[in-house]
């Protein structure tokens, strides 16, 4: 109760404060994981900060505390003339669809889901391509011949990560075993590091020595337990290599920041388009992370193999299976 009151109060104040700006301000609506989840939402935040730094145009943002606030927040943004209004996360789709219909002249964008309306830009990523690469790296780095995957909520999107990962592992060495677990089936699965950690321990005890986390804040538990047990974790969405330096093999980066930045820039430059934007390796939408924290783990051989596979995926020589296309994973 208290939370709702405080949130709605702060929304009213926030909205009143920023109504008079020259350029239309973009607005950003985070998903339940929260702005600083060290992962997906935080990437969106960074993209917007970059836009702000370059254009000196401020932006508006809102972190929802419960599902009911999605529509309310979007409608508020729309009424105040924010443009574009960017919603982060697949679970915003229904709300975006509804509000975008109510405001057909406003520009909306949604990340991770397709909303088929002319005034909505649907930004989706080829997570399977990035996951393929980290799967390949995991397979090369594994000494036990067993690797793991811990997903957040059991939804097709996360299955897509898993499928690309498995394909990458198997393409490198078909004999490697891949353990797959999901934290849960509800939204709480994104914020349960304890469960994520237990699943990781369970995989490690079965012999896995590299575990890929695609589980939002639950993934923090995965990386922590992997590091604690002297094994390797793989981060997701943002570059998470710095969380446990030398213990995070790499991160599958999903450049939500790039997509968010571009959406805001396009509106400012008058180059806005609706429709579906699919960002893969070719467009720099996904990638694997290499920095000071993990360079000791990535041998020249691994790097060469990853670079080769990346080039092959871009050229079309390697076809990475998209789980969403047929809802099955052939591996």
């Amino acid at each position, binding site marked *: 109760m208290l939370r709702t009151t405080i949130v709605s109060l702060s929304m009213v104040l926030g909205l009143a404060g920023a109504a008079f700006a020259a350029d239309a301000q973009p607005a950003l609506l985070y998903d339940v994981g929260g702005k600083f989840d*060290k992962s997906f939402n935080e990437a969106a935040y960074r993209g917007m900060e970059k836009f702000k730094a370059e254009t000196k145009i401020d932006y508006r943002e809102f972190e929802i505390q419960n599902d009911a606030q999605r529509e309310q927040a979007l409608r508020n943004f729309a009424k105040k003339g924010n443009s574009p209004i960017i919603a982060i996360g697949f679970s915003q789709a229904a709300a975006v669809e509804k509000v975008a219909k109510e405001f057909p002249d406003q520009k909306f964008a949604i990340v991770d889901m397709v909303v088929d309306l002319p005034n909505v830009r649907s930004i989706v990523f080829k997570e399977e391509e990035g996951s393929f690469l980290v799967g390949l790296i995991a397979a090369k780095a594994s000494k036990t011949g067993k690797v793991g995957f811990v997903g957040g909520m059991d939804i097709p999107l996360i299955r897509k990560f898993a499928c690309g990962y498995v394909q990458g592992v198997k393409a490198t060495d078909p004999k490697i075993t891949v353990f797959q677990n999901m934290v849960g089936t509800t939204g709480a699965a994104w914020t349960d590091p304890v469960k994520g950690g*237990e699943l990781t*321990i369970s995989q490690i005890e079965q012999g896995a020595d590299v575990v890929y986390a695609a589980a939002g804040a639950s993934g923090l538990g995965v990386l922590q337990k992997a590091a604690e047990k002297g094994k390797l974790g793989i981060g997701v969405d943002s570059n998470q290599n710095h969380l446990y330096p030398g213990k995070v093999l790499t991160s599958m980066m999903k450049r939500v920041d790039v997509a968010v930045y571009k959406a805001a820039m396009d509106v400012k430059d008058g180059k806005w388009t609706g429709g579906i934007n699919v960002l893969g390796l070719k467009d720099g939408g996904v990638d694997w992370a290499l920095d000071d924290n993990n360079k000791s783990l990535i041998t020249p051989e691994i790097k060469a193999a990853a670079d080769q596979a990346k080039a092959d995926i871009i050229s079309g020589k390697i076809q990475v299976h998209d789980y969403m296309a047929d809802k099955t994973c052939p591996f």
Partner: protein
Amino acid sequence: MTEFFDMIIPVIGSAVRLSIPLLFACFAGLFSERSGVVDIGLEGKMLGAAFAAGAIAYHTGSATAGLMGAIFVSILLSLVHGFASITHRGNQIVSGVAINFLASGLTALLGQAWYGEGGRTPQLPDSARFMPIDWPGVATARVNLGELGNFYVNVISGHSILVYAAFVMVPVTWWVLQRTRFGLRLRAVGENPHAVDTAGISVALLRYLAVIIAGVLCGAGGTYLAIAQSSEFVRDMTAGKGFIALAALVFAKWRPFSAMATCLLFGFLDAAGSRLQGTPLPFIGQVPVQVFQALPYILTVVLLAGFIGKAIPPKASGVPYTKDR
């Protein structure tokens, strides 16, 4: 057979780790309800404690300081509950629910205001956490003792100090309740407060002591979640454990050793669910992940409905004490 042991022993180890927050919360409830104060706010107290542990351990760099802070916060919440339900004879359920709401909202709000990480506390270094303790001989036990060694390594050894404290708490609680004067009075005040009052002992004082003990235990449970099992506080990280602990308490008929067994059972179901996910079972094949995740709840309901016998709560439990005039 070896294969079976290799699979089941780590699951038991995992069950021990997962049952600890339940165990602390369940015993907190046990003390409170045995004294006649129903405590539905276990969840909120653990959550508040977890937040305090995460925040204080971060600022002081000391896990012990985190534990102390967590216990302090949890006792404060207990006293709020006591003040409303003992001193002012308010509805104990309403007061407990209020504590849950307060803790859930306040931890997220303060966490966001102080650290700006979406209600989380900053990640802790290992030195500020309760780390697993390896018992002597762990390195060689596996080789020398076979399956017994495996059990020793995975189940007996390798837990943080709080885990061992939780198991020490069980016989101590039994002893306090059954063999001390304080325990006798505590049980009496939950069954027949008038008799206790007639004997010239303060009902309110005893009940306050009970909720304070509950606060201490919830504090330990929250600390375990935030800085032993994880390395930070995450919003709403108790995830219903306080309520499962209450179910365990009813299931165990408010008795210490049964309570421990029930908490271990619930922990085991949780652990088995995690382990069996994605593993094909003989004759059935691959079972959807949802089945395993629902299993603890289904079993809880079945057990509660069918096999529990008669659960008789302390007679005066939930009834505010009013002196006859």
